[in-house]
């Protein structure tokens, strides 16, 4: 991918360049996200934040830290573990949780496969299998608000999602019957058995997330930056060679310089060829890319036109 473009000016988050009373768009988005965290924590009793070690969840957690400083983050984090992990991401997850003194809950897809509550899919991907362990963890811990890193620019079904989005007692999302969301007056009230999903990054784009990571110097797992990796081509995506993803038939293993735009189930999350070794490189790359991050890297979203919509209706994040 050739990178020669004029980038829009990257606005610093903590220091506006002129003494005028106007926020940069990143400052505006940051302020909105902090407001959302504080509203939900004030109005509900048992929030939890979905934390996978992926960039969106890392940025979300960073915002949560800022929202309650100097008090600690007032809720635990939950990882729905597919068992198909990139080892460096799991290690990053544990390091972050330790550094911030958070309580980590893990809901394991593997446990469900072991005792037969879930069956492995023919295509081997475990992303869609996360829904049941997630809903069970919500019920078991009586979580009433679940913070997720979903963004509306990611996918067309997500474009219709509310910031504070009601889930019924089956965890279902009903896109045709959503609460209107007005001004900045978020309403997380719900009946017993229901809960809300909350998306503080709703109005952020992939580029905003990266610009914020740069401005705030946020640490990420190394695989977001260019590195050499053994990969093989399947359905037009570079998959990493690992315990759960092995080449089949005529698939050739090659060493490529790659990075990841998203982090999920290792067996179906593709790498992109890239020389972007720093945050600034990644921003330059994302600014000129012609493929969405899910389109480029998520096999499970390519299944049908409405794959994400269907999963969300069932309670997926």
């Amino acid at each position, binding site marked *: 991918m050739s990178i020669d473009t004029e980038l829009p*000016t990257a606005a610093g988050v903590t220091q506006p360049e002129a003494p005028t009373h106007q926020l940069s768009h990143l400052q505006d988005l940051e302020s909105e996200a902090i407001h959302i965290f504080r509203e939900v924590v004030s109005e509900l009793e048992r929030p939890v934040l979905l934390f996978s070690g992926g960039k969106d969840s890392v940025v979300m957690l960073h915002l949560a*830290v800022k*929202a309650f400083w100097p008090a600690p983050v007032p809720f635990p984090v939950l990882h729905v573990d597919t068992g198909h992990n990139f080892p460096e991401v799991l290690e990053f997850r544990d390091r972050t949780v330790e550094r911030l003194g958070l309580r980590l809950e893990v809901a394991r897809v593997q446990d469900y496969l072991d005792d037969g509550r879930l069956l492995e899919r023919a295509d081997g991907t475990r992303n869609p299998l996360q829904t049941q362990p997630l809903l069970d963890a919500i019920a078991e811990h009586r979580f009433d608000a679940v913070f997720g890193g979903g963004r509306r620019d990611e996918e067309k079904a997500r474009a219709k999602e509310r910031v504070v989005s009601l889930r019924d007692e089956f965890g279902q999302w009903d896109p045709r019957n959503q609460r209107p969301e007005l001004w900045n007056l978020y309403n997380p*009230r719900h009946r017993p058995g229901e809960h809300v999903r909350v998306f503080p990054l709703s109005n952020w784009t992939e580029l905003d997330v990266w610009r914020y990571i740069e401005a705030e110097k946020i640490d990420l797992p190394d695989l977001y930056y260019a590195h050499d990796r053994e990969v093989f081509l399947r359905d037009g995506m570079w998959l990493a060679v690992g315990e759960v993803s092995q080449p089949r038939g005529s698939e050739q293993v090659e060493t490529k310089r790659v990075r990841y735009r998203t982090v999920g189930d290792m067996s179906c999350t593709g790498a992109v060829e890239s020389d972007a070794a720093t945050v600034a490189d990644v921003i330059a790359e994302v600014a000129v890319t012609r493929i969405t991050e899910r389109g480029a890297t998520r096999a499970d979203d390519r299944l049908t036109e409405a794959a994400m919509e269907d999963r969300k209706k069932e309670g997926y994040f």
Partner: protein
Amino acid sequence: MSTLLRLATAGSVDDGKSTLVGRLLYDSKSVLADQLESVERVSRDKGLGHVDLALLTDGLRAEREQGITIDVAYRYFATPQRTFILADCPGHVQYTRNTVTGSSTADVLVLLVDVRKGMLEQTRRHLSVGQLLRVPTVIVAVNKIDLVDYDEARYREVAAEIDHVAAELGVPNLVTLPVSALNGDNIVDRSEKTPWYGGPSLLELLEAVPPETEVDDQPFRFPVQLTIRPQEAAVDPQYREYRGYAGQIASGVVRPGDEVVVLPSGRRTRVAGIDTADGPLDEAFAPQSVTLRLDDDIDISRGELIASVAGAPTPTQDLDGMVAWLSERPLRVGQKVLVKHTTRTVQGIVRDIYGKLDLDTLAPAASETLELNDLGRVRLRLAAPVMAEDYTTSRRTGSFLLIDPQTGGNLAAGMVRGEQAFADGAAVEADSVLNWSI
């Protein structure tokens, strides 16, 4: 520095709004190759001769199957100067509810009018809603200009009609321009086919719209979201005695040393410090999220308002306001509701329904109930005071939600009317109150 502009689009059925939004995204290069391929594929499958850009925005299965737009969708695009958040409000199903929702946060409302049809009843209603919600700028894109052969006379006719209605409704900042969303005329680039127009393209207009009112001219308002008191949970021992009030500044500017009043109690104190996780600030302004420390060790909790002393609002238990009714179940006098105003939620009872607005004329008409999509004026009695201000002076401290105490769902969007139009508990004469302007 790139700044954020929030816009809402609205229009009637078949006036090409989805195409316009698709065109804005496409021509500003916010549509990526895989999204376009998917739209091209679906267009082919449907047997269309052209790429249907509307498919870029209609994401849900039912929308694609039925060719309709169900709910407000949010879109993102950017130019070097500005980042745009676009609330795309569908025109037919529950259009009032959707337009009210989209307009509530919008700096700009973009309305679509089909040049062949001119002003429709629904266009008028969208203008009314935009005016009621005080969207600072309205742009009317007169679309399908290609279908009248770029005829200047027809455009002028429609534009004059729009200006006339806007003047009637009292819309202050309104601009019209001729466009063809299908062909991209005057959307991103100025079109050569409308030499008689000579004005900026839609995107140029959006880049030039001034930001909301200058915060320096506003009084300081800070609804407290929560008290931050780490106590023994503080990792750093120096914060064990810390007590700060977290919130998002609703209007104005604050500096350490400013004298402030805490409402509803009316206690006065000074700002000791403005804190953020990045360090203390010398000043902060709307809409920053910050934490304030105060000079006196007074006990403040969620829902209280820290305000500049001069012109501070008077706490009141009587709320007079215009509401957009969003629920299937009608509103009746005597109904109990929850009222969420800024960060404060209190119980309320509906004392009066003064009437509803005829959306075609914005003239009031008597009514005993409010039904879905009605806009009407009500008076509520509250169990505890709120620090409400006129919506026309502040969208943040002038707006409220009515919430169903049983389901927790949103019943209505409310806009506070007037410097309390009546004294606490005083009798209100229906005739005089019905004689309102907006």
